[in-house]
């Protein structure tokens, strides 16, 4: 096991915010996603796991419990933390990577090949001679990931890595992460936070949903559906149809919530997603967006 924690509690007396996560487990090859609204404790949790912030509770890294005499310096050499705001690199990108490799004790004669492997793996070979200011935010993130991978960390902690990335870059980055975990030379676990629910749920083996500092869900995405007695669907219709749809839902005693132009409709599991969609089409609604979020943490946002 890479990391386990029980009963993590972190309290900020002045803001009265309290983070309470009963259990976090990160096993080798697994990706754990942390989601929740802004200010609900995602960054705090990741900082605690990355060893950047103290918290109450029992933490165990790589089979060893954290104690007063824990050698954090040695421990942190196995943890790679990419914060939301990545510090700027100076000099060429390859210079920085070589420096990290040398500082991590990679022999000079192996360094070039090793770095080329990582850069090829992440598709960054063509950009290695550029400078930080000459590459986009997405590439900066991927270069930072490349830098972190040099030391073959056992735990990758990524705070909002998808923020500011376009959809294609997000997909590419997440695919990189998957590839890293599939590569047996990296005995790594990944924990990342994000607001891109769909994308993160697609790659994560385990999700943690935080609300007001409390972990309201922790488990595989599939477990979400089993945990609830209703299906939840997200629907968007043409603007002129919205009032009619609301009337329709009220008439049929269907519970719903509104998030901007979207409606989240819940009903019991006797009907399927297709049944509901068929009814909507028959009623003549012009559907712009429709998604079954029963297995997504998104259903938790409006509860």
């Amino acid at each position, binding site marked *: 096991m890479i990391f386990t924690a029980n009963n993590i509690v972190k309290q900020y007396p002045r803001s009265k915010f309290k983070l309470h996560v009963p259990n976090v487990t990160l096993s080798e090859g697994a990706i754990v996603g942390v989601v929740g609204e802004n200010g609900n404790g995602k960054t705090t949790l990741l900082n605690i796991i990355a060893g950047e912030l103290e918290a109450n509770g029992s933490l165990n890294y790589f089979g060893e419990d954290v104690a007063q005499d824990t050698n954090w310096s040695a421990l942190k050499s196995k943890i790679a933390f990419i914060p939301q705001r990545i*510090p700027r690199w100076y000099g060429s990108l390859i210079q920085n990577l070589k420096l990290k490799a040398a500082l991590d004790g990679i022999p000079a004669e192996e360094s070039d090949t090793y770095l080329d492997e990582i850069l090829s793996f992440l598709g960054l070979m063509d950009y290695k001679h550029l400078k930080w200011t000459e590459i986009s935010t997405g590439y900066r993130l991927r270069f930072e990931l490349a830098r972190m991978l040099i030391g073959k960390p056992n735990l990758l902690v990524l705070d909002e890595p998808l923020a500011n990335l376009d959809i294609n870059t997000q997909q590419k980055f997440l695919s990189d992460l998957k590839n890293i975990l599939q590569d047996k030379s990296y005995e790594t676990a990944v924990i990342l936070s994000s607001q891109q629910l769909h994308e993160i749920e697609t790659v994560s083996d385990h999700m943690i949903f935080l609300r007001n500092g409390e972990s309201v869900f922790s488990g595989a995405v599939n477990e979400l559906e089993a945990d609830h007695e209703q299906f939840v669907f997200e629907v968007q219709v043409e603007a002129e149809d919205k009032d009619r749809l609301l009337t329709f839902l009220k008439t049929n005693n269907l519970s719903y919530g509104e998030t901007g132009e979207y409606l989240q409709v819940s009903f019991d599991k006797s009907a399927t997603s297709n049944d509901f969609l068929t009814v909507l089409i028959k009623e003549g609604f012009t559907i712009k967006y429709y998604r079954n979020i029963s297995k997504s943490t998104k259903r938790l946002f409006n509860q």
Partner: protein
Amino acid sequence: MKAYFKKIDYHLLQKYPNLWVLGVHIYLPIILVLYLVIGLTGLLYPLDPLPEFYRYRDFFQNTSVTMILPTILLVVVFIIRQVKFNSKRVHLSLPYKQQFLVFLYFIFLFLSITTLPLVGNITAYIKSDIVLDQEQFSEDAKVMRRGFVHFFLEKSYVDDPEDCAEAEANGFYIDAYGDQRSYKRYELNNTKDSLIVYRHFVDYSYSNDLDTISLDQAYREIDSFIALSHKYQGDVTHVDPVQIVNANLKTDRYYTKFEKNVRPAFSYLQDYGAFDNNINFHNKVISKGSFFFSLEWDFWRGYLFITLVLSVLLIILCSVNIAEFGWGMLVVALHPTVFGIVAALVAFLFREVDGEMAATIGIFLLLLFTANAYFFAFNKRFKPALRRAFAIACHVYTPIVACLLIVMYKEASDCCYLDSTYRENCDCILPFTREQYNLITLNTLIIGSIISTYVFGKYYKKQYTNPQIK
């Protein structure tokens, strides 16, 4: 050349990343080349014939002034490189021993850079020291001192022409300030067989002795001077001793203030300026301290202090967040201000106390304020960022306070130079000489900086890696 540099850069980056971060392959060659170029100016400046001393000195002083800007630029560029490549993220990842070696390298590099403006002066001095035969000059000077009075005597001037007549009548010389002195400048004695001379030495050292020499001795002095002076560009116009002495005795030796130019009473040197410069040059080299700049230890102490301060500040900058460095500097600046205000208040309250008591109170206050800074730095009740800001202040203060304590103790007990009736409560018990105290203070500063950096380097590392402290 560029390819060669890239090869070295690449090699260092991969094999010796710590050295690469420090930029040894950039700064050491630059410093070395500058040392060579500037050093060569001092070595290649021709000394045969000897140049005019003041122009020679000015040339190297101008070189020093010219080098000030490049020196500052080098320091700034070096600091920027460290901030870029040796920032907290890299620096704190180094093994601690290497972190500490980085500090020693900073001292070495800053000392090398800040002494650049002085290199020309140093090599010029070294060359002069080697080229000029100082031992021989000292021997020759002894001989030339005696003979010089027969070849050159400046007229002195007096306040009033009437005084000249009076002085002449009385055989007195009256100087510019009206004090009578019974110095005859160049006179025969009453029996006319000896010469009374007021020695005006070739190397500007004056004797208060009126010398009475036989005429034969005077002739010998003249011959000896002629034999040696040409070695120092002192070729003479007259060579007959008898003729020289007779001419000198006839010369009007007084001068009035109404005459605008000071002229020699007599001069038999073909180019007195060249001779004077030559002697002056030798003297400046021999006396060292008055050469181009002070070659004394005091002067270098200032350089060492600047170097240590720069090194300590830079190692802190590499070990902490930039923002926290800023807060630390604020504490460093404000703490002495508060100390100053409190000290002024205390001084006002205890204005009647004697010097020793005042120094004791000062030492107590200094210790109190240092203890206060340590209290903030190590007390876990305070926020980590605040603690680190005070730790930065402690890091800077520790060596300086240690030195200040020694200086204050020394000043409080240093009354030995006073007459015993003025010592009052001071017993004049100084275990060391002033020079020894200065040396102890300097060593305290160096050792204090090293120990302080060692201790606080560990502090920063622990602070930033251990979340239980953060």
